[in-house]
């Protein structure tokens, strides 16, 4: 620390990403004195690097515990499916944890071991000598394309200048998400190679993300919204088919009665569906609605009551099907029932 501090103020430190080294001073135009390129990063004060214990909080241990518990659960499930999971996962945990231990522990101990380790090792070199994903890549692959190799190295050096706590959690997060995603998809993907996107941008604190304030609620909301099943449940197909068809009377036309869904005027003798509440609609208007929600649009009477059991049973399937149908049909023009309609009476709608 002393080397970085003068007059009580930390000296600015810089890192050249082209040379991949820390540099003492900059040229006046903010370039590297070695390569004269400008890909320079000003580093944070390095005090934290030397005192890892002061920088790792209880919250971090909770996060670790959370990650490990999930990882352990995930790996157990994966073991049942296939054996491929174990190699990468156990090896990586050991690499970081068991520098002083020659014999690997049984898998069962992993979560517990990390949980009970209340302080990370004191000296940074002992603690984070390897970027685990890097080592794994080297083992599992033969020759690596040069530019790829280079970018990985840059990232490695780059992160190794960060405060220790950050690095440590980051590695845990990497491992966790590789494992988690491979558990989900059956494909072992590596975050450090993923060209498409970095899943970590979605994340803050993983425990909070899932179970924290409103976290679970958000997920449930999201799922419900995907189903689009807010509001009353749909009416079953049988009940929809049972709705009687009647014909429009002269009286109704004289009263300028309209279909409340399409807003077209009814015409004499036109066939319409009449609900229990006596409200009438064109069949192509009311049926798609009832397939979504089993209520009268005008008076909101619930139509499915005396057959509640059946309604509950085939709710979701028909509901989704109805949604798709409505979406489809809305792209077509109406083939239906409304040759009148100059739209002149729309201000006078009569709801029965």
């Amino acid at each position, binding site marked *: 620390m002393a080397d970085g501090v003068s007059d009580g103020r930390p000296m600015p430190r810089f890192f050249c990403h082209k040379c991949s080294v820390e540099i003492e001073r900059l040229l006046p135009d903010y370039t590297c004195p070695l390569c004269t390129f400008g890909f320079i990063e000003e580093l944070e004060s390095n005090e934290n690097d030397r005192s890892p214990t002061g920088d790792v909080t209880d919250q971090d241990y909770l996060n670790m515990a959370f990650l490990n518990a999930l990882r352990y659960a995930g790996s157990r499930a994966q073991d049942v499916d296939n054996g491929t999971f174990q190699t990468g996962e156990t090896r990586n945990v050991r690499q970081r944890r068991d520098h002083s231990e020659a014999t690997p522990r049984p898998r069962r101990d992993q979560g517990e071991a990390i949980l009970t380790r209340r302080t990370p090792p004191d000296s940074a070199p002992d603690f984070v000598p390897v970027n685990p994903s890097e080592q794994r890549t080297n083992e599992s692959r033969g020759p690596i394309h040069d530019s790829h190799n280079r970018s990985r190295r840059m990232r490695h050096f780059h992160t190794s200048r960060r405060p220790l706590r950050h690095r440590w959690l980051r590695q845990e997060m990497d491992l966790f998400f590789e494992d988690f995603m491979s558990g989900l998809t059956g494909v072992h993907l590596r975050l450090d190679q993923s060209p498409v996107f970095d899943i970590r941008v979605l994340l803050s604190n993983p425990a909070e993300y899932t179970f924290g304030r409103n976290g679970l609620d958000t997920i449930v909301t999201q799922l419900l919204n995907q189903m689009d099943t*807010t509001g009353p449940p749909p009416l079953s197909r049988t009940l929809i088919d049972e709705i009687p068809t009647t014909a429009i009377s002269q009286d109704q036309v004289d009263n300028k009665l309209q279909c409340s869904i399409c807003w077209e005027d009814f015409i004499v003798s036109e066939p319409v569906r009449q609900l229990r509440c006596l409200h009438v609609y064109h069949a192509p*208007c009311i049926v798609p609605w009832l397939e979504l929600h089993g209520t009268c649009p005008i008076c909101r009477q619930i139509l499915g009551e005396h057959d509640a059991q059946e309604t509950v049973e085939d709710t979701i399937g028909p509901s989704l099907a109805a949604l798709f149908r409505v979406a489809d049909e809305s792209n077509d*023009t109406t083939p239906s029932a409304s040759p009148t309609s100059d*739209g002149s009476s729309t*201000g006078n709608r009569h709801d029965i």
Partner: protein
Amino acid sequence: MAAMSPSKRRLQRELMSLVREPPPGVFVDGDEVGQNLTQWIVHMEGAKGTLYEGEQFQLQFKFSSKYPFDSPEVTFIGGNIPVHPHVYSNGHICLSILTDDWSPALSVQSVCLSIVSMLSSCKEKKRPPDNSFYVKTCNKNPKKTKWSYHDDSV
């Protein structure tokens, strides 16, 4: 008109009705909306004798191709978002007929009337208690919010 989808036909009818006989305090520019029937701007003024008297508001309606089976997405927009316990500062409105209680027999006009009425019955101008949290975390589309309706008094 013959080539219009059912939702467009219905919107066209609603527009004609609203231009011809607008409810008090509600104004819609028929030419402007006629350009794009799926997104309307409705101008609204606070009713006389209420806390919002003299204020001008703009409501934006967005309609999906499933309208009227699917409710419109309705938000306040522009410089003056009414300060009301059910109106978030981003313009989202907590009103059950806009989601759970939507019915295809409702219309732009009836939604406008409900909103005017909601504003008019307000006793104290204030934002919803969870305004800052909601505004930070919500989806752009208020219909994506799982609203829980609990206050029928305002």
